[in-house]
């Protein structure tokens, strides 16, 4: 079990505000790691750094031993990191099938024929239980369906590391169960490493191997779920939030 991604001293600020401050972290191959922290802790910013939407002012990122700090989003994606977005961003004016096709095209492999790509996209839609929606515009989907579609698009790029940003937010308990099953299948069948941000504590604590906690841009704790839950700094950070 080697390290798949490693960040060292990552720092990113906007204007006067430092969103991520000197964060070190790593993920092992095949792990499922949760990223938690109060609002504004810098979780999504960290994801944006990892997927090349932003570039850090300081620090380095390496993926499978290769430096990716200043690569562009699409290059990072082609190396094998895919993501979903906190606020879902499917291509609204395109059909579900086309959404997934973009992920397949995004692999940048010209050898595959258009027909094979269509077949693969259909399979992926079926995998996330969206069969029958192929020609439906993404705009017409419900929130959970949009989230599944985004997941299918991310999977279409054939990643080795999947970044999931609050995939459970806004779902009801039975939908959450479905989503967790899907994540488990991705991990066990597709052998992907998963890094996920979640506010639904019960779920993330149950499903993760490890948890990383951010507060005000800094990593305040890292460890197995049960260690994290009982950590005084973590409790303080969350209590501070509920006070506000």
């Amino acid at each position: 079990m080697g390290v798949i991604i490693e960040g060292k001293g990552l720092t990113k600020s906007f204007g006067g505000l430092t969103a991520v401050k000197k964060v070190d972290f790593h993920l092992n191959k095949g792990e499922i790691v949760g990223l938690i922290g109060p609002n504004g802790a810098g979780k999504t910013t960290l994801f944006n750094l990892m997927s090349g939407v932003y570039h850090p002012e300081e620090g380095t990122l390496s993926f499978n031993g290769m430096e990716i700090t200043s690569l562009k989003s699409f290059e990072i994606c082609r190396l094998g990191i895919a993501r979903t977005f906190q606020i879902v961003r499917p291509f609204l004016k395109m059909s579900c099938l086309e959404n997934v096709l973009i992920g397949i095209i995004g692999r940048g492999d010209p050898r595959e024929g258009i027909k094979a790509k269509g077949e693969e996209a259909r399979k992926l839609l079926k995998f996330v239980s969206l069969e029958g929606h192929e020609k439906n515009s993404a705009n017409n989907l419900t929130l959970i369906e949009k989230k599944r579609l985004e997941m299918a698009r991310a999977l279409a790029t054939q990643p080795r590391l999947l970044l999931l940003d609050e995939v459970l937010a806004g779902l009801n308990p039975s939908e959450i169960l479905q989503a967790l099953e899907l994540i488990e299948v991705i991990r066990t069948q597709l052998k992907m490493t998963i890094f996920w941000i979640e506010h639904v504590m019960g779920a993330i604590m149950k499903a993760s191997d490890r948890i990383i906690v951010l507060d005000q841009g800094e990593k305040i704790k890292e460890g197995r779920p049960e260690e994290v839950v009982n950590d005084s700094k973590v409790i303080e950070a969350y209590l501070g939030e509920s006070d506000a």
Partner: protein
Amino acid sequence: MSELLMYLTNGIVIGVINAISAIGVSLIVGIMKVVNFAHGELYIFAGYFSYHLSVSLGVPPLLAMPLSIFLIFLIGIGMERTLIRPTYGDEMYSLIITFVLSIVLQNAALLIFGPYPQKPPNWVTGAMNIFGLYHYGNQRILSFFISIGVLLSIFYLIKRTWFGKSIRAISQDREMAALVGVDHLKVNMLAFGLGAALAGAAGVVLSPIFPVTPSGSSSVSLNAFIVVVLGGMGSLKGCVVGGLILGILENLGAAYISTMYRHIFGFIILILVLVFRPWGLFGQKTQ
């Protein structure tokens, strides 16, 4: 030697004129990420307003000038409310709408004011003999100092007042600004109005030197865009430096290289900036 001094003097004066013509564009682009292609037309309208108020309606020039600027400010607010606001977040439509608007206003000016060049009365006439070396128009010298005054007040407004702080907050991070209680819709509207008013101020200050015509608006806009890209989008300091560089370069270029190609020097800088320093001299390198 006196010729070179003349070219440089004129380059600096025209440079400041460039800066004041461009600063409204820079302000709007910095805060709202919207390029106002109708900037030159607002400039032209201000010139015509100033002319008609003072000559046709007999308003004293000192009153006609701020009144014209105020009218342009109101037009700017109206533009923002009706046309620009719905395009926030859709860069393409804001570009298309302001471009079409510039054509509409240009033709409206032709219809309303006619094709003839007009200018409000001069404040001063004649020319000054500078150090016994060359003559320089008094009106230009006066406009030069007024332009500097306008630029200084804008700097003051942006750096020192509540309004300035709000717009700086918005231009850095819209969401953070909203969190600390800045009403970005209101600030956007005022900022667009201010940008328009600056186009108006330029038109009012400069029309006694360069009479306005409806077809003259596009060159005003183009010059302003070069200055803004050169200085860095949204940078007021860049605007002044960019304006000066353009003014001096055009004058020296016309003097020593080619008079016919004087307007091309600016574009060459534009291309060079894009190749070597695309975020401009004082712009922020994003990401």
